């Protein structure tokens, strides 16, 4: 386990709090295949936590466990001090956990604006009947949330495309829209599954900036999976390293970098 203090302030002045989410001895199987094997780690309030590892290490499965999409056969997920029972993903989302996807999962038939507005569904309170009547409560709510969404659209600099159908956008912009959708939920914990996959250097820089800004301005806790080691080491406060479903390293970027097991895994030393 990492040896840092309970609460501290980073060099650039961000406040890292206590444990927000704790994964305890998680094991996940698909039939006979073990995707995650007895992994434990935690995510702290306000930090940027990275999960890295070679292909097939079980990183995405781990993220899916956090977001409630997969239910682990063994182990507990503890969120803000309470053990989380098995719950459907939408309930997890309602607890304030939002995410993006490795292969973009936008709603292709809708405009950018509508996509981002779906991110605010967890904040919409008007009942069906009120919506059917529209005038009054539903409209007020719509306008209020539209304002919130417009803030995020401004923040991510996608104003020009807000009425464009998502299907027509290039890859990089889609990634950004997906981030916007996740941010619109005003999450406490934001999960990013390879936010920079398939991007060129410029786009990566943009995305890194957005991620840091999100963490900085909104104080959002972020857990991300990324392949680009440079990016990971720059961005994150702490890193979990996985290989073949097992945890082989956990700590600050510097600690992980010097971990022999991690080096072996990345340099491809044969498993015995």
């Amino acid at each position, binding site marked *: 386990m990492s040896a840092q203090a309970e609460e501290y302030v980073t060099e650039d002045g961000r406040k890292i709090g206590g444990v927000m989410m704790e994964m305890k001895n998680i094991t996940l199987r698909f039939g006979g295949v073990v995707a995650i094997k007895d992994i434990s780690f935690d995510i702290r309030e306000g930090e940027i936590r990275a999960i890295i590892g070679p292909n097939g290490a079980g990183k995405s499965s781990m993220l899916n466990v956090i977001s409630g999409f997969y239910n682990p056969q063994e182990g507990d997920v503890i969120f803000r001090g309470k053990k989380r029972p098995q719950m459907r993903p939408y309930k997890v989302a309602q607890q304030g956990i939002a995410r993006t996807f490795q292969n973009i999962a936008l709603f292709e038939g809708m405009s950018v604006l509508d996509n981002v507005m779906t991110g605010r*569904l967890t904040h919409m309170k008007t009942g069906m009947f009120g919506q059917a009547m529209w005038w009054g409560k539903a409209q007020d709510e719509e306008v209020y949330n539209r304002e919130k969404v417009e803030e995020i659209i401004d923040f991510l600099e996608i104003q020009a495309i807000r009425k464009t159908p998502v299907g027509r956008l290039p890859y990089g912009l889609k990634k950004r829209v997906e981030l916007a959708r996740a941010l619109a939920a005003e999450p406490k914990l934001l999960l990013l599954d390879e936010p920079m996959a398939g991007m060129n250097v410029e786009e990566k820089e943009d995305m890194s900036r957005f991620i840091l800004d999100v963490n900085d301005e909104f104080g959002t806790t972020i857990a991300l999976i990324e392949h680009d080691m440079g990016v990971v080491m720059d961005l994150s406060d702490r890193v979990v390293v996985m290989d073949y479903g097992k945890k082989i390293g956990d700590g600050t970027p510097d600690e992980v970098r010097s971990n022999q097991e991690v080096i072996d895994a990345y340099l491809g030393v044969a498993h015995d």
Partner: protein
Amino acid sequence: MLYREAGDFKTTYVEDGQTFPIKFDRIAYYILLAVAFGVVPFIINDYWANAVLVPFLIYAVAAIGLNILVGYAGQVSLGTGGFMAVGAYACYKLMTSFPEVSILIHVVLAGVITAAVGVLFGLPSLRIKGFYLAVATLAAQFFLVWLFNKVPWFYNYSASGQISAPERTVFGIEVTGANTDAWAKYLVCLIFVTACAWLARNLTRGTTGRTWMAIRDMDIAAEIIGVNPLKAKLTAFAVSSFFVGIAGALFFAVYLGSVEVGEVFGINKSFLVLFMIIIGGLGSIFGSFAGAAFMVLMPVLLKNILVGGLGWPTDIAAHFELVIVGGLIVVFLILEPHGLAQLWRVAKEKLRLWPFPH
């Protein structure tokens, strides 16, 4: 340049979110409403009402309902005929059990009952998807028709098994039964269509609509961002069935006056309404109207041209009608798979630029 949006700026989110953001459209819409309510009732005759307008309006309600389910929520249903039957029989039972209550309330209640039945048959949609669900809804279609045919309570134990709408009035004007005037039938249906379209528009442009579309486009992602798929799918079934039930009630009470379930609400009806929304355009309220108009008018028009105009024998004309309607459907799908609504959109975009295409 008559049709344009340049200079038509929106300064509030309310204005930006309205149904017809372009001024020209708005005016056209109000004129259409004014003509529909203010002019047509005075010039309508029996033929236009019974053969064209009333069925068109009722089918439009059904098409809006099905479009919510298929076009917005992405759950393909082939049970429309069965759900219309629920609306019709619910309306009949209500009309005969509580004759003192207004028929308009009965129609709405019939919609509510159908919504409940729709939710029941929508439950499998949580586990079954795509064509499998489409075929599964046929279970509803066949079972409901069988049920209404089999259980005499539904048709008040009448010897014939037919249900007939008794005469009912609204503000002293007959709206069901034999002596209803053409304009009264038309107006009742028009009111329901307008109300339904308005409700559907409100639901689809707001939170509920986005929930449905999210489920349609990618149900797994939708659930992960916080959409309760159970609620989203079941509300889609409920709202859709509500409209379809209203359409069924009107179909029975106002349009036909008497129905037998197997004949009127058979599987052909399900396919017909599905045709309407696909030809009209999935996920479009306007498309529901366009599709209903196309499928109601086309056969009447063809018949009048082939038999009335060209004097062909009726059977050859009827066969040609099948060939032409079938052929047109295929041609339409090839030319514009997104339906009449998309055709209209493209035409409008062209018009915006006209006469300066560059």
